[in-house]
């Protein structure tokens, strides 16, 4: 049989009193402040840098264009210097390398029956039946 809409609504209304467990909001606030503090530190460093740069640049007057061109030229030069080029290498004589891969010996592992992490605990070796 189908429930009536009223019956469904009554069931849904039972959820109205749901809330997180005790102590949740204290932990939440601690985390919230931690995040705000982190953001404040990151944000203030960045915005302080930007505002310092903006005010310095603005105070230059007409000569700011000369400064700007100079900075751009310097950036291009640095970029040119740092760009890697192909380097001529000496042709070194090649020598054949002989090696053989030897598989590491399997460590005999024991199976613990119980959670006992003491180094002296003996486990079972060999076949384990599950």
């Amino acid at each position, binding site marked *: 049989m*189908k429930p009536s809409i009223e019956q*469904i609504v009554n069931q*849904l209304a*039972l959820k109205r009193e*749901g809330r997180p467990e005790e102590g949740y*909001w204290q932990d939440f606030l601690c985390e919230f402040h931690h995040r705000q503090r982190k*953001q404040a530190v990151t944000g203030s460093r960045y915005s302080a840098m930007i505002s310092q740069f903006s005010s310095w640049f603005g105070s230059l007057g007409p000569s700011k264009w000369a400064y700007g061109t100079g900075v751009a030229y310097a950036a291009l030069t640095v970029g040119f210097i740092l760009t890697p080029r192909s380097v001529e290498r000496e042709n070194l004589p090649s020598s054949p390398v002989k090696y053989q891969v030897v598989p590491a010996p399997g460590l005999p592992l024991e199976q613990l029956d119980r959670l006992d992490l003491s180094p002296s605990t003996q486990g079972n070796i060999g076949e384990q039946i599950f």
Partner: protein
Amino acid sequence: MFRQSRPPDPDQDLITRAQQGDTRAFDALILKYGDKLFGLVYHMTSHKEDTHDLLQEIFARAYQSLSKFRGNSTFYTWIYQIAVNLTLNFLKKRKRRTTLSLNDLESSVQLDPALIDSAHEANPERQTALNELQIKLNEAMKKLSDPHRMVVTMFDIQGMSHVEIAKVLKASEGTIRSRLHYAHLQLQSALQDSWEERF
């Protein structure tokens, strides 16, 4: 023509203090509305961790935007709108990111007050049956589309009026009513086989 005066926001004092940098005032607002917003986000996401992360984001966003809050609505409506928008965006991203099966989402059994038997003299058999029904209802809710689940959460679970919901969702009251009606029909259909006469 006189403009009808709006009743003062009960949170005006806290808002002003928070805007002036008093973090304890904002804390008080978090504690005042936290449970309501928790309920909204949890019933939409069905995931306690996601709820927690979203709530952190919602309150952070509200705190950052507090200086822009002009009082055109109450603080509660304003922060509720932020919560609705962030939750809907999150759900869209979650759908794109993974194909979550309904089973991947936490069962709300542990946290759902509808499942807590607070009356010691309650009939255990009836309680078990009611628990099963609530679980079925939770499953049916998850199958609703996000906008439909949102109106059911706001109206049926949170007890908001059509007018309040329309304000938050920036839709007409008529749209809200028809969306709600459709959602109820969907739930009714989903619970068809789970309902017993004794309920």
